[in-house]
């Protein structure tokens, strides 16, 4: 366990400067940052010097976008996104394995065809398509019930019913991924001889699942959860842009010039300090998620310990 944790944290420490450099030089050398404009005769890219930037950063000076300091924008964004991500991951982890258990048939000890089709279909559903369908339904709701407002809020921020639609769209993919992996692993596990022995001993189905099969597959579930974070971050960009959630994904979308309503992306566009910080944050988030889930996997499955420490 400890060697694993140490190695993961070392990786984290190694990658942060790397991501930092990547973000900075991306912004510095981006073609759009190196075109002189009437307002700025010296392009931003040329005016950026890495040592100066580093000095500012070490002095705690992160620059600002317009009048708002970068630190503030990013902290706010992280906070808002963390609410969305936290809830999504919680639901994924709580509901995913349960659905996985349900999707294995008790009689055949295999995945139910319906369950497999549904999980595969759900995983194939692009997040934005689901989002668009829901938005269309909500808009249709306005016209049908003529209440003047949608049944559920379709945009904006709020720790209330505003969360429902974004979390729904964000969670569908990872949730069904966890379901599918749980079901697949369970199917494999239930074909093994010890299950037959356990059944012939007269063990109940629930005891068989939770006492015998679950401990063998839980590590894989943790690891899948870790892998789905990569997916979640992609989803975050789409979902936050679609539902106008003021989180870090939308800030990133702005900073690379993406706005779904087609307007100009404002001062955020290719802002060097902002971009660097965002890249580092995404990297830290992914690596932390990987670390936590790997540690959980190792903790839950003693079999994994041996090759790692050998």
């Amino acid at each position, binding site marked *: 366990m400890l060697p694993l944790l140490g190695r993961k944290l070392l990786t984290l420490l190694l990658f942060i400067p790397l991501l930092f450099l990547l973000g900075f030089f991306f912004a510095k050398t981006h073609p759009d940052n190196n075109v002189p404009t009437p307002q700025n005769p010296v392009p931003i890219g040329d005016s950026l010097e890495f040592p100066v930037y580093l000095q500012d950063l070490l002095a705690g000076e992160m620059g600002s976008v317009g009048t708002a300091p970068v630190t503030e924008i990013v902290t706010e964004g992280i906070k808002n996104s963390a609410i969305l991500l936290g809830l999504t991951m919680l639901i994924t982890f709580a509901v995913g394995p349960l659905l996985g258990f349900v999707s294995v048939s008790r009689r055949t000890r295999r995945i139910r065809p319906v369950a497999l089709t549904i999980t595969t279909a759900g995983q194939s559903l692009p997040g934005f398509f689901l989002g668009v369908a829901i938005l269309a339904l909500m808009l249709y709701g306005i016209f049908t019930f003529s209440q003047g407002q949608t049944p559920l809020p379709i945009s904006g921020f709020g720790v209330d019913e505003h969360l429902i639609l974004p979390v729904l769209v964000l969670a569908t993919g990872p949730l069904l991924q966890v379901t599918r992996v749980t079901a697949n692993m369970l199917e494999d596990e239930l074909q093994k001889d010890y299950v037959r022995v356990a059944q012939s001993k007269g063990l109940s189905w629930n005891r068989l699942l939770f006492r015998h099969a679950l401990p063998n597959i839980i590590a894989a579930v943790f690891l899948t959860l870790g892998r789905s974070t990569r997916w979640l971050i*992609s989803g975050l960009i789409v979902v936050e842009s679609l539902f106008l959630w003021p989180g870090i994904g939308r800030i990133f979308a702005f900073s690379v010039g993406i706005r779904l309503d087609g307007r100009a992306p404002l001062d955020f566009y290719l802002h060097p300090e902002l971009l660097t910080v965002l890249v580092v944050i995404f990297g830290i988030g992914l690596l932390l998620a990987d670390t936590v889930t790997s540690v959980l996997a190792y903790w839950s499955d003693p079999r994994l310990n041996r090759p790692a420490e050998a």
Partner: protein
Amino acid sequence: MRRNGVAEFNYPLLIGGLITAAFILLAIIGPFLTDQDPMADNRTMRIDGEWVTAPFRPGEIEGFPLGSDEIGRDILTRILWGIRPTLMVALVVVAVRMGGGLLLGLTAGWYGGRFERFVEGFIGAALAIPILVFAIAAITYIGLERGLMAFVVALSITGWAETANFVKDRTRAIMQAPYIEGAHAVGQRPNRILTRYVLPQLWPVLPAMVAFELAAVVLLIAELGFLGIFIGGGVQFDVPDPLSPGVILIRTSGQPELGQLLSDFWAKIIQTPWVPFLVGFTVFLQIFGFNMLGEGLRRYLDVTRPSTRLSLARIFSGNKPEPVYGEGLGVHT
């Protein structure tokens, strides 16, 4: 195949295979199925002496079964034309990703030791960057006007990592098996060990991996398109400004491609809501086909079976292979 007394029909392979085959067929012959020009606009048409103006709703007028977009281009035609370029981009990206991942993973797993650590570091770095974030950044950096090249580079640079990771773990696991030690002991050459013991266990996993990767890449292309990043630039057309005399220039997708057809979402959901819906459904169907095919292939290609001969009985039976792509316990530390 009967196992534990319960027969299982491999329907994911059938469904996935059928959908994928249909899409490949459409990619090849799609443009010939329609006599309309995907680029030609029909802003106003005279039907039975009456003038109608675009956009046309699905089924509203003859000749536009799925309706038209805001300047009167037939959606069915555009979807039929759009499948081919999307599929081609996906194929190229997957080929580059799989090639790179396979090569790197195989060599890392084969040599082990310090080289493996080195490659692991690489994989870790690639996995630490969210794929959509990297793709957007890279494509805007390279420039959309470079077309296909920008997409292949952006989607491949970090995309190989998962394949490499999986192949590396598999190879490592095989290399640590007792029979490899045995093969060394009886004096087998490395060449022979590779071709006789390692590769035969890796090949069967590949088709399922390709199918899953294709699904992932098509999804990514669609997401990029939705966010306004698509292959080739758009075209501009002018519409009369309702508020003032004169015209407004609007940029929209030119040569059809599925990702492109999904772009410019806010304008479409109000003016032509059926366009994002129909195209989104097409994309969904395509991804679903690939995923089902991958699932079916995974079930079908059982590496532990001695015979890999194709037979109908085997296609429709559910065998469970040992390696589970992206789902095994191959933790890399």
